């Protein structure tokens, strides 16, 4: 497809979305030094402490607020702001100072830092860690003695939500994935069966080119899938992959596309139809549930347990859904945010 001027702005938007994805795995914003914006609870005698390591970013705040609200009845909660430049000794000092029964790690950067702290401190003796807002935590976490809540909304949740909004049947959902995500996709396929959803997966090399992506998509669309599920994999969401891989195929074959980033649902470009993301405030409540479970179990954890997020928010391209997929008008109020 020849690049024309009218594609520049929407591609820039999509490129920005890709950059935001990439930002999940690297430093985001500088954090003010000092006490920061996150006050904890007052210290109370006889209360165990939960230590929360977090960056100072907008998406962290609703999680922090609800988590603190829920924990404050039975725990003291302290925050340690993590900057892109933070070193493992910040973690070590905070743990030495607060002797937490449990730590919470918010965001990829924080989780990676904590893993470096453990690597430098040596094995054993760590408080249990609860990992949140971290990309593909089931695949990439190197933190010992940790449990987590996945950031990616499971396909079963996204697709069954999509079914409530459109009359077009959704039975077979296609996904293109790099080889590194095979385990994740297999797990999602197993979860999806409870809702009688079949996940049709096509693997591409870990360094797949836009052309290889296009070929995989063509094969998927040719196998009569009812929807496409786009993984939050920034390697397949570069501007080139979107322009030369995704868009040409989606222009030929209108299927609803489920994405994990709201900014990928935009009227400017026919890419995402339906975005499903975790409800961040409810995520804090769910994380508190995990910590209370830990407490009931004397802080002995089922290491490696990764829960799925329970609560989601949705964004739908109502106009496109109406034209192509049979949008159910009675769901208009529930549609939540819609693409602009």
């Amino acid at each position: 497809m020849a690049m024309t001027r009218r594609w520049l702005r929407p591609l820039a938007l999509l490129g920005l979305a890709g950059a935001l994805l990439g930002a999940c795995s690297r430093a985001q914003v500088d954090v003010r030094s000092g006490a920061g914006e996150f006050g904890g609870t007052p210290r109370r005698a006889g209360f165990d402490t939960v230590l929360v390591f977090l960056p100072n970013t907008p998406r962290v705040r609703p999680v922090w607020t609800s988590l603190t609200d829920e924990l404050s009845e039975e725990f003291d909660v302290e925050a340690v702001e993590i900057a892109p430049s933070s070193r493992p000794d910040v973690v070590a000092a905070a743990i030495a100072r607060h002797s937490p029964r449990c730590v919470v790690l918010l965001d990829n950067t924080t989780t990676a830092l904590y893993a470096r702290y453990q690597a430098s401190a040596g094995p054993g003796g760590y408080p249990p860690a609860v990992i949140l807002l971290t990309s593909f935590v089931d695949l990439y976490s190197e933190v010992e003695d940790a449990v987590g809540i996945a950031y990616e909304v499971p396909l079963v949740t996204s697709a069954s939500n999509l079914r409530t909004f459109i009359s077009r049947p959704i039975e077979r959902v296609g996904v293109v994935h790099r080889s590194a995500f095979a385990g994740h996709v297999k797990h999602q396929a197993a979860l999806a069966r409870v809702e009688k959803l079949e996940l049709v997966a096509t693997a591409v090399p870990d360094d797949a080119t836009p052309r290889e992506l296009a070929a995989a998509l063509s094969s998927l669309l040719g196998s009569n899938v009812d929807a496409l599920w786009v993984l939050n994999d920034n390697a397949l969401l570069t501007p080139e992959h979107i322009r030369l891989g995704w868009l040409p195929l989606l222009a030929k074959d209108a299927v609803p596309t489920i994405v994990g980033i709201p900014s990928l649902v935009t009227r400017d470009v026919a890419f995402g139809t339906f975005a499903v993301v975790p409800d961040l405030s409810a995520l804090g409540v769910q994380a508190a549930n995990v910590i209370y479970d830990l407490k009931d179990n004397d802080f002995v954890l089922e290491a490696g347990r990764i829960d799925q997020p329970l609560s989601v928010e949705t964004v739908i391209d109502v106009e496109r859904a109406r034209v192509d997929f049979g949008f159910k008008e009675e769901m208009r109020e529930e549609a939540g945010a819609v693409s602009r």
Partner: protein
Amino acid sequence: MPIRSSTRAGARLGRRAFVSTATLFSFAFLVGSGARSVSADAAVTFYVFLHAQTGAQALQKMFEDALPGVSVRVFSRAKDFENSVRQRPDAVLALLPVLQAQGYAIHLQGQRGGSPAERYVLLSQKPVSASSVRSIGAVDLLGRSRMPAFVSKLLGGNSPEVTPVTKVADLLPLLQFDKVDAVVLPERSVGWLKSRTRVPLQVSDLPSGQVGLPAMSFLSPAGQRLRELAPKWSPAIRAEIGVDSWR
């Protein structure tokens, strides 16, 4: 206009000018009063803690459309509501047990089909009974520390582990992922939840499954104005909150 009264004509002009000016001032006062009245209405704060199927944002918009000039906040988290009502809104709307737990006087009680309470049931994948269920999902109405007693009462004394969620829709993943034996919810929400899944779900009765419907408490003279407005809310709002009349 300057008032001149040196001649009779001037006196008449002066009186007319006075009347005109007085009229202008009176008008300004009335308009100003109206403007102050709108401002006073805009200062009325109305806090709602209910879990509508359409979600908190949609419910808030419905109330805002129905109550122009009233500052409406709809909460979906019990702790958020509990912390915020310390700011003393003018009126609150929540389920009866929520208002009672907060110590509020009940000024208006919602009714449906002539009853001030509605039936709650268990929903599960496998057959369960109120006496044997070991883990329950429930929308958090009362806060983490009070929910176990609330659920236990519904179950006739059984005290399972309670997993709180913040929306009715979030009860479904608890069942899909097999995280709980059952979820507890109003009977009127069962059809809605079942329509969102292909998982076959069973309904089981609760021995003490009656829960008070939404009720209102007016915390200030300004909040009292909402007493007259509540019965005039649209059928859509009444359907969302599960009330068809007020007492």
